[in-house]
């Protein structure tokens, strides 16, 4: 009976928009849900550096290259904030240390965002990622700024501040291409064609196929449903595409005057499930890169630790 009371009390507490802090009592499934979500969010930042890093050395101008470098540096920082927030949950028999959760990711036991399993085939893809992928991420993360776990909410505030730079630099890339030669404009259109559906899939399964969402919304971690966020994203993004003079690769897309929303086709869910299961275009490549990085740089970490131990002895 006592436990039921505690859970009810907890739910009432978060329902009043109170923040939970690391040492507060929380239901086990709340802790579990957060460790899973925050660590996978962190992994996404880390793996998300790869598709973009693919174009650092090939960025078409020094200005673009500097912006891309700064953006990828931000992603590393975002990963760090999130691992830090996740680690505050490592109590009561739960492990949440960054090395542990990262290892889970390398072993394929923990996920990262499906979007980063798509390759970047042209410079325009870097623009599309900034505009669409970071745009979708902002929409999701602005919602998460109001989530019930204090350390996660604070990390989101910090991240959202930086993320709008990413989206704007991406849109600017596409705007330049769309005002450029015929060839450049076609390159931009093909990038939109490739990233449109994967970006919409970032919001997750449809509401009726998302069992975790219910719990997440009850605990005030998620504040808005997948479909609702996705709809909002489509509504704001379509006019941005029109401004570029690009067309959305969806023959069924149309504006509904009565609802005031854009209606669009069913998403390619088979593809979504394939990518999540590890069979997307770049899943293997992404994990291999991270596994190799860890393996090859191990000696550097060992050197740093040995040096720190020596320093400690002399002081």
């Amino acid at each position, binding site marked *: 009976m006592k436990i039921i009371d505690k859970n009810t009390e907890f739910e009432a507490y978060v329902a009043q928009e109170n923040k939970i*802090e*690391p*040492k*507060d009592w929380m239901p086990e499934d709340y802790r579990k849900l957060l460790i899973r979500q925050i660590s996978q969010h962190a992994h996404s930042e880390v793996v998300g550096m790869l598709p973009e890093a693919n174009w650092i050395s090939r960025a078409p101008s020094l200005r673009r290259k500097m912006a891309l470098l700064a953006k990828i*540096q*931000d992603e590393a*920082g975002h990963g*760090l*904030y999130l691992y*830090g927030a996740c*680690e505050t949950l490592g109590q009561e028999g739960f492990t949440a*240390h*960054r*090395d542990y959760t990262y290892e889970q990711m390398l072993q394929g036991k923990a996920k990262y965002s499906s979007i980063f399993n798509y390759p970047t085939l042209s410079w325009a893809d870097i623009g599309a990622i900034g505009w669409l992928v970071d745009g979708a991420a902002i929409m999701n993360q602005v919602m998460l700024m109001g989530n019930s776990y204090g350390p996660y909410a604070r*990390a989101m505030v*910090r991240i959202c501040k*930086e993320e709008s730079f990413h989206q704007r630099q991406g849109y600017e890339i596409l705007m330049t291409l769309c005002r450029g030669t015929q060839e450049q404009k076609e390159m931009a259109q093909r990038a939109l064609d490739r990233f449109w559906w994967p970006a919409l899939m970032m919001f997750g399964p449809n509401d009726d196929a998302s069992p975790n969402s219910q719990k997440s919304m009850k605990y005030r971690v998620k504040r808005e449903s997948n479909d609702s966020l996705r709809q909002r994203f489509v509504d704001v993004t379509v006019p941005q595409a029109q401004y570029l003079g690009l067309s959305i690769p969806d023959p069924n897309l149309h504006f509904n005057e009565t609802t005031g929303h854009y209606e669009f086709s069913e998403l390619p869910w088979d593809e979504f499930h394939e990518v999540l299961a590890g069979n997307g275009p770049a899943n293997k490549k992404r994990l291999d890169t991270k596994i190799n990085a860890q393996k090859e740089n*191990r000696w550097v*970490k*060992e050197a*740093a*630790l040995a*040096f*720190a131990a020596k*320093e400690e002895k002399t002081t």
Partner: protein
Amino acid sequence: MSTLDVWEVFIQTKPGLSHKHAGTVQAATAETALQNARDVYTRRMEGTSIWVVPSKYLVTSEGMNKEAFFDPADDKLYRHPTFYQIPNDVKNM
């Protein structure tokens, strides 16, 4: 292999203000912790001074009974200036 220490980062946004907690970094030495904190938390001119402290040295009140710990503040209203009645005629107080 053992892991790198976690450090708490405090940033002073400008001279005259107190340092505020910004987050954490992982580093082997104090010097690299400071470097990492600079790179991560002051890239956009967010601060003029940084403190880093190994997280393991932090002692916190969390985990204690919050009500009992902070309760004594509750019934001592006489610690607040508004507790004292001063006639309206008395100015500049």
